[in-house]
Structures are given as structure tokens and as C-alpha cells.
């Protein structure tokens, strides 16, 4: 009797482990829209961390740096962040006022997130791009982050069914043969037949370029993952691997019928 109880307990514990491992982590940086016009010049921009498809949030500490790049000039926005609840966990938000035309690249460098289930730290450099007042220049410029995805498809004004093309940079150089995870910010719209369907995975070619066709409207996140060339001391004092992510979020609009 005792033995069967302990077996059951062990079974339960084992059953819980793969469940937590199947989910992909994503740094998230989501504006209200990725094109602003003069009728809506202020946008809420939300920063959070979690599993976008399943909608499971994770607490995000106040990031190390959150900034916007306009024509190569960077403005720090970290001070304007206030905590909000996103996917039932702590995220951050700010109201950003667009003052002039331009392609605004928002980027966040988070604090490393300790993931006990994987025994690693996760640090996702996350970007999103907003075009204001008809500007169409400069969306493909890299920001010089430790790692980042540079879009080769214009990252706004796209429809669902279009193919995202991007280049992964690590230390400014193309990251060949590396894995890119893709998830839809599902917000409860779809259910996945298996855990594998929650995250799509592609690899970059020798130039660090990947392609992925987004079959549904919504916010799509692309996360290129690499282990850092450094470690950080974990809660137990031992050196832990740091997973660096280059994440880019873009919106695919639905096709609209003529009214």
C-alpha cells in the first residue's frame, strides 16, 4: 500500500515536469497598433513575459532598459513604466506619445529571469516597430543589441498569410543555423491539438535568415535563442546558463472585405 502510494506520487511529479518544459518563453513588447495616424497619437505599450499561445504569464521585473530608437537616436523610457497585470502576472506599461513622423523601434533589455524548471536564466532582448504618420524609412536598421532580429519584410502594413523574413544577429553578426521559435499571441482564440503545436520552430540558414508564413491575423512573436557566452550565479550559488533571446513582435492584419 505504502509502495503504491509513493509510486503514484512519483508518477504525479514526473507528469508535472514535461508539462512545464513544453512551453516556450517569450519576452513580449506589444503596442496597441503598429501604425499610428494623427487620430491616435498616443499608444499604450505593454511589456511582459510568458507563454503567448497558452496565455500563461510570468512575473516580469522592471527591465534594465526600455527605449525607443528614432532615426538612430535613442530615448530612454524606463522611468515612465508603471506595473500592470498582464496574463495574471506583473507586466509593465507606458503611454507613448508620437510627436513626429518616423519609424519608431521600441526595445527592451529585461533583467535575467530565473527559470527553476529549466535551471537557467532567460534574457530576451525584445523589439517591436511602429510607423507613425506615413513614415516608411528605416524599419530595417539594427539597434546594436547583444542579439536581435532585423526584419527583411517591412514589419507593418502586413496581412495574415504573408511570410515573415528576418535575419538573426548575435553580437552584430548573422547567426547561422540557429533556432527560431514562433508563437501567436493567442489570447484564447485557438486551442492546440498537442503541446508541440503551441510553438513553431524554424532554423536560420547560413546567412542567419529565416522565413515563416503567419497563417492568422494577430501579434506574432519570433524568438531566436542562443546560450550566452557567460554564466550567472543561480540561487544555489552555482554558475547557470543564460539563454539569450532576440525577440521581434509584428502584427498581421486580417484581410478586410469592402463594406
Amino acid at each position, binding site marked *: 500500500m505504502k509502495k503504491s502510494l509513493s509510486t503514484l506520487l512519483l508518477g504525479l511529479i514526473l507528469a508535472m515536469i514535461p508539462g512545464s518544459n513544453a512551453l516556450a518563453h517569450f519576452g513580449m513588447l506589444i503596442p496597441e497598433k503598429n501604425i499610428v*495616424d*494623427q487620430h491616435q497619437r*498616443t499608444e499604450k505599450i505593454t511589456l511582459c513575459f510568458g507563454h503567448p499561445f497558452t496565455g500563461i504569464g510570468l512575473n516580469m521585473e*522592471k527591465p534594465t532598459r526600455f527605449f525607443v530608437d528614432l532615426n538612430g537616436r535613442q530615448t530612454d523610457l524606463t522611468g515612465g513604466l*508603471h*506595473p*500592470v497585470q498582464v496574463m495574471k502576472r506583473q507586466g509593465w506599461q507606458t*503611454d507613448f*506619445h508620437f*510627436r*513626429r*513622423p518616423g519609424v519608431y523601434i521600441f526595445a527592451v533589455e529585461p533583467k535575467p529571469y530565473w527559470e527553476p524548471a529549466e535551471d537557467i536564466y532567460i534574457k530576451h532582448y525584445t523589439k517591436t516597430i511602429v510607423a507613425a*504618420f*506615413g*513614415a*516608411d*524609412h528605416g524599419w530595417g536598421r539594427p539597434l546594436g543589441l547583444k542579439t536581435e532580429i532585423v526584419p527583411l519584410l517591412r514589419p507593418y502594413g502586413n496581412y495574415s498569410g504573408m511570410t515573415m523574413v528576418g535575419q538573426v544577429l548575435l553580437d552584430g553578426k548573422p547567426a547561422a543555423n540557429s533556432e527560431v521559435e514562433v508563437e501567436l499571441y493567442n489570447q484564447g482564440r485557438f486551442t492546440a491539438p498537442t503541446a508541440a503545436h503551441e510553438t513553431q520552430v524554424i532554423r536560420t540558414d547560413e546567412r542567419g535568415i529565416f522565413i515563416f508564413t503567419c497563417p492568422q491575423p494577430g501579434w506574432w512573436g519570433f524568438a531566436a535563442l542562443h546560450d550566452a557566452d557567460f554564466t550567472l550565479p543561480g540561487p544555489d550559488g552555482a554558475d547557470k546558463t543564460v539563454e539569450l533571446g532576440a525577440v521581434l513582435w509584428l502584427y498581421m492584419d486580417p484581410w478586410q472585405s469592402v463594406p
Partner: protein
Amino acid sequence: MNRCRFLPLDKLFPTILLLCIFFAPAPAFAHHLYVFAYVSGGDIVVQASFGHNRPDVGGEVSVKSGAGKLLFQGKTDGRGMLRFPRPQLPPNETVKITVSGGAGHQGVWTMTPADLGNDSAATEVPAESKSAIQPAHHSSPPALSEEEQKYLARLVSDAVAREIEPLKAMMARQMDSGPSLRNIIGGIGWLVGIGGLAAAWASRKKQR
């Protein structure tokens, strides 16, 4: 275009212009004309471009008040820009700037009172934060519905969370940086204890 030759173009022109104005807000043309304007010192500066860094050179600019009064007319320069003195307007007045680039290209930019520096409208302050800042002047609490109470509670908790955030960060920093007071006191306790044990050991040796 050939068909147009057989039509009375001069008579149709107002209709075409009207259609252009109607469809201008919808950015449906690949060759759209984008207009932007801002205040620079005592002037208003207008920029007009077709995108791809191509300026609208010699574009006809017409500036009207929100009430429809014509305030200024001019043409953009070689960089697609035009500068003119900021008109004197009542505080809540808007300014509508229309630029036409020929062949049916037209763009509009409306400057709000905030854009014009007439901040009495205070459009820059989001409604949410305004309601959070405004102190309650009621001496007795007004009767609130359950929903309003919940809303108020959320506003207050949001505001408190925002205010204590720097404190939380400071506490987190203090926890991270070196030994805390408790660690130090604990350490002293250990030292005293070990010292006491050593003294007891020594005195026992002496007694023997």
C-alpha cells in the same frame, strides 16, 4: 486618361477635388502624400512627402482654421517644406493644413490646440491619469455603486503600486547589496558565542 479628353474637365474638377478630400484619410494609395506640421518658435513648419524620402516639391499648401477660415496659402520648397508665422487663434482652435501634390495627391494634417502650444485643452494628459491625480473635494463620501467602488479601488491600488515601486526597488537593492543588519547581528552573536565557549574552556583548564 484618354477618356478625360472627352469630358468637360474644368467642370468636373470640383467633383474630383471633393472625391480626393473624401478619400484622403484612407491611406490606400501606394503614391500617397504625407503631411506633417509642427511648431518651431513663432512659426509653423509644414513637411510634405510622397514617402521613400521623396519630398513634395512645390506642393500647394492651404491652411485653414477649424472654423474653415483661410489663414495662409503657399508652396513647399525644394525639401517639401514650408514655414509661416503661427496665426493668432483662440485657445481651443485647431488648424487644418492641406497640401496638394498635383494629379490627385492630397494630404491633410490637423494641428490640435496642444500641438499649437495652447495647452488649455490639456489634451496631452491622458484621461486616466487625470482622474487619478484629482483629489476628492467631497467632505462626505458620495454614494457609489458597487462597480464604481471597485473602479475606485483599482485606481487607488494602481496609484499606490506606482508610488511604492521606487521603494520596492530600493528595498530590493538593499537586500541584494551585502549583508543585512540581521546578518550582522547574527554574525556578532556567533562571535560572542564562540568567544564565550573559548573563555569557559580556558577557565575550566585554569581551575584544574
